């Protein structure tokens, strides 16, 4: 991380963030019988104009984490600080002003736009909610500008979502998120619902916006290649915990956690000359249920290097002086790789 970014106060910070969903039994008298530990003690920091990628498979808690970071859901414990403020201790009025600074792009462009509102209404809704943001007389022009920013034709502002293609709908969602001039954009799988040939358009748009508007981004995805393409720094999640964080180069060229290495080995490279020959890094078995995660290291049931020591939960910490924390007792080093 460049020292400059270190100096600026973080835009978004999560500390020991935890969200457990209670499992109840019984119809009338609900008894609590357990909890799904969707997010379990996550620490992360996003600095201004930085892009953080969060990678993980389904069930790792990344979507719950997104809801917590955006203050759409309350954590069971731990804290979120957005631009120096704790959203959960704010009044609803104060929270609304905080919302102007962080916005979100949702995964599915087919469900994230109200089918009964026109493109102009959808993109202009932020101004209706925050009338103080833009004067009424200027709103129409601002909506047109936003549509142009995301590569849509402003003359289409009276069209309904179903009259747009998937990629265009996602652009509408991005325009809506940008309307209030946020400093941070959280993107939850923004291209996974799109056709392959359209994904690149949206990825390039996000990259341009990030650069031109100096936006900080949190980019959540299951797709390693997509995250790699956009992010400066990457956190790998497994069963509600971050198991490794590092710069893009660190994660992709010298992964230290066996799970990260397995993810990289399993991702199919679109080149027939580079068929995955190294079956040794492929994982066996499935993801354990987050309702009853393994004791100790959560990855130990699938880890090829698991030993007795792994019954004790490893901390996410740096080793050997490199700024590349892993939660593993036996991180991969160049020697044992």
């Amino acid at each position, binding site marked *: 991380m460049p020292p400059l970014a270190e100096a600026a106060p973080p835009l978004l910070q999560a500390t020991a963030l935890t969200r457990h969903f209670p499992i109840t039994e019984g119809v009338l008298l609900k008894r609590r019988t357990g909890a799904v530990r969707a997010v379990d003690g996550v620490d992360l920091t996003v600095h201004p104009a930085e892009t953080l990628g969060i990678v993980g498979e389904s069930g790792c808690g990344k979507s719950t984490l997104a809801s917590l970071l955006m203050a759409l859901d309350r954590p069971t414990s731990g804290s979120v600080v957005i631009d120096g403020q704790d959203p959960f201790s704010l009044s609803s009025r104060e929270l609304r002003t905080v919302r102007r600074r962080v916005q979100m792009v949702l995964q599915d462009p087919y469900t994230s736009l109200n089918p009964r509102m026109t493109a102009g209404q959808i993109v202009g809704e932020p101004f209706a909610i925050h009338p103080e943001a833009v004067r009424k007389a200027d709103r129409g022009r601002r909506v047109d500008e936003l549509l142009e920013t995301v590569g849509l034709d402003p003359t289409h502002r009276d069209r309904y979502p179903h009259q747009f293609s998937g990629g265009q709908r996602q652009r509408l969602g991005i325009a809506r998120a940008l309307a209030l001039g946020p400093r941070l954009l959280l993107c939850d799988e923004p291209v996974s619902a799109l056709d*392959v040939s359209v994904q*690149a358009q949206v990825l*390039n748009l996000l990259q341009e916006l990030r650069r031109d508007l100096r936006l900080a981004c949190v980019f959540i995805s*299951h797709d390693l290649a997509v995250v790699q393409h956009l992010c400066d720094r990457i956190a790998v999640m497994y069963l509600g915990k971050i198991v490794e964080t590092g710069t893009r180069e660190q994660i*992709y060229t010298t992964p230290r956690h066996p799970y990260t290495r397995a993810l990289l*080995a*399993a*991702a199919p490279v679109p080149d027939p000359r580079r068929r995955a020959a190294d079956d040794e890094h492929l*994982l066996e078995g499935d993801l354990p249920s987050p309702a009853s995660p393994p004791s100790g290291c959560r990855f130990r049931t699938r880890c090829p290097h698991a030993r007795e020591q792994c019954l004790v939960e490893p901390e996410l910490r740096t080793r050997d002086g490199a700024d590349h924390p892993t939660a593993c007792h036996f991180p991969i080093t160049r020697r044992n790789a």
Partner: protein
Amino acid sequence: MSADTPPLLEVDDLCVEFRTRRGTIRAVNGLSYTLHEGETLALLGESGSGKSVAAQAVMGLLDTPPAHITRGSVRLRGEDLLSMPPEHRRAARGTRVSMIFQDALTALNPVLTVGDQLSEMFRVHRGEGRKAALARAVALMDRVRIPAAARRVHDYPHQFSGGMRQRVMIAMALALDPEVVIADEPTTALDVTVQAQIMRLLKQLQDETRMGLLLITHDLGVVAQAADRITVMYAGRTVESAGAEDLYTRPGHPYTRGLLDSVPRLDRMGKPLVPINGAPPLPSSVPTGCAFHPRCPRAEPRCGREAPPYHTLSTAGHRSACHFAEEVHRAPVG
């Protein structure tokens, strides 16, 4: 494969229409491919390209009406499936051609145990007794590497994880030793680590049985890792077909080239993406001439008028439906 033995599965100029009250939609409009024994052929296409409809047409799973096969042939070892009497066709389903679906949770019956569903195949098609059929089911589950098969055979589909359910689906598809297995997006619903397991399993099973595998997917990565040959579909039509390495290193169609340039790749970190403009057409409004011309970077006026014929390119078996196939093929991949 000598020249006089017919190929395992040969689809030629297949056209499928949906006739609804509101008009006719050409979902598949000239699809051709050949699948040989022990070979994996990938049918690569985006949503709306007609790849799933084409698979259902081959399986005989389409309902008429609204679906009508208007042209073309589907030959299994030289025998035309489309002109077969319906009873023969039904008998071939499962025993000679079978299918793996994307979503195992909806493709399996939730109220029957996995063992019931697997053993039913042997009881119906082979007339085996309950005990023998169940033993076969366990053996089958072993074959698809489901741990503790003898115990799990009595579980219901929802008690299996996504990856294990997909293994059950594969077991069902392979139960009667079919010659051709059609896998329709078999790993799309799965996570990468599980996807890798399933693709590896399919490869191992193929080596054991010499089955022909038709892999239908939109995932360029999965195709590159698994396919021997590839047929690319766009708007219901085959636009290019080639051997896997040939297609990825020297694509002969601008659409294929566009796809390859637009996916982010782990092996090309930081390289800018070159997107394809626009969106794939809806099956109800396919552009005239070459269906890809509105999105094509090198389209000329005639592309909007004339549907390009297939050009055979330098390498054996590499065909492309583009007026400029030779040029595109010659250009280096960046």
